[in-house]
């Protein structure tokens, strides 16, 4: 922490100043050229809508965030589990490759209408599953890659110690894989929010951010629609930062 002062200036102050400048420029352009609200509302009006509808936006964040969280946990759990199975059982790995490959090219939110008819349009299940599927792919691939990173010299070392394969897994394989798992989770955390939100566009119960954005835009309340978009951005950041925080917490290594 020797250079805390200049680092603070660079990492905190600089982006804030830049952000403030962009907002002021935006406000200036909208008022200066008298741009209509349905094209681009002014940031101050979005801000005031956000402030006066804080409760609604927060409720929407809670619904969408809840779906994203359930999807993230479910998708990550299944992804890590199947990656471990794939790394241990060769046959399973060979079977899984085409299936997961196919899954990764499916536009997963496009499954939402099908899932709504499967689980009923009144339940959040479809959205949670969409998020889980979106999360599963990057977590599975990254974890599997991580599990295969054990260097030959470490494998030789473990063999020379004549330890059980479970001991070797715990001492070397899992710690080697951990950074890869977290890379997957970090990508997945944003994907979970995006998928849960977009899935709302295709139906299901109201209350989430996605539904709120479409209904506010449909009733020409553009400032409010943008306020919900702001809520979505905050939600995505919360998920991303949480994933980053857990990663930093678990890998205690300096540097």
């Amino acid at each position: 922490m020797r250079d805390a002062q200049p680092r603070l200036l660079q990492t905190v102050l600089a982006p804030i100043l830049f952000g403030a400048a962009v907002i002021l420029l935006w406000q200036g352009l909208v008022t200066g050229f008298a741009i209509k609200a349905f094209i681009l509302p002014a940031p101050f009006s979005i801000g005031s809508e956000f402030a006066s509808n804080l409760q609604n936006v927060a409720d929407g964040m809670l619904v969408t965030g809840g779906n994203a969280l359930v999807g993230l946990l479910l998708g990550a759990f299944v992804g890590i589990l199947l990656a471990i199975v794939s790394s241990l059982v060769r046959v399973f790995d060979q079977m899984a490759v085409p299936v997961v490959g196919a899954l990764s090219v499916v536009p997963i939110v496009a499954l939402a209408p099908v899932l709504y008819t499967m689980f009923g349009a009144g339940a959040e299940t479809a959205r949670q599953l969409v998020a889980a599927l979106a999360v599963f792919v990057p977590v599975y691939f990254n974890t599997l890659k991580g599990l295969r990173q054990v260097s030959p010299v470490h494998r030789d070392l473990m063999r020379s110690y004549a330890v059980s394969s479970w001991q070797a897994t715990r001492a070397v394989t899992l710690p080697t894989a951990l950074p890869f798992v977290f890379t997957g989770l970090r990508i997945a955390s944003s994907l979970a929010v995006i998928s849960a939100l977009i899935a709302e566009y295709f139906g299901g119960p109201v209350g989430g951010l996605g539904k709120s954005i479409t209904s506010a835009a449909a009733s020409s309340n553009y400032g409010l629609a943008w306020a919900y978009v702001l809520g979505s951005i905050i939600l995505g950041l919360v998920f991303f930062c949480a994933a980053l925080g857990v990663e930093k917490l678990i890998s205690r290594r300096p540097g």
Partner: protein
Amino acid sequence: MSITAPTNNPDARTTTSAVTVDGVSRVFAARKGDGVTALDSVSLTVAPGEFVSLIGPSGCGKSTLLRLIADLDMPTSGSIEVFGKPARQARIDQDYGIAFQQAGLLPWRTVAGNIELPLELHGLGKVARRARVAELIELVGLSDFARHYPDQLSGGMQQRVAIARSLAESPSLLLMDEPFGALDEMTRERMQNELVRICAETKAAVVFVTHSIPEAVFLSDRVVVMSPRPGRIRSIVDVGLGDMSNRGEDLREDENFFRGLSQVRDLLHGDESAGRPPGARGVETR
């Protein structure tokens, strides 16, 4: 000539030898044809406490031979015994410590954590572990770095950690596969001096793979010169530079050291007149 047949080593007959390699061949399967013969009926005996280097050009099977002794690989034919036991049993009983060309440290563990690893895996108690680790760190001169991580250390320091780790369970046999191969010349000589000191303290037998002639001659009681395709033992040179505890930096200027160098070099170059007077050629320093 001070070249002896492998089984004529006087120390080997009196006690159970540390390593007995008897008629070992290793053939690696190739996609087509008969495969590659890495080792062809090699026999070698290493006495307890003896320092033996394996030297030869790449492809002579010196590393393969070391891996076979460590039971990291299995011979196609022949037998290997370590302290009178099959190599596999010796590995399970943890009769040897091993160090590789790459230090092979776990980057998420500190220096102390890395040295502790074998002790921890084999279930030694926490208190005993801590005491042993402190001893070993002292032995390799890294006391100030116990809490550092491997990527904060130089290559030479990492290799010292790896050597401390290989010594953790006080093995009577140390297997080393070019442990100083990736180090610069000055660090390498310093590490050699340290290894000589450590060997004098631990009295462990050492099988040391290298492709540096001075390194082999400086460290060893005997130097096994190997030839490639197929890997065979060409000859064994009795260096006779005296006890480990008396080997210091001045030995590198000693006449016997130079004689050993030219003997080993002549053998490596396939010169049949290996016993001729020393100093006839310029001496390589590396």
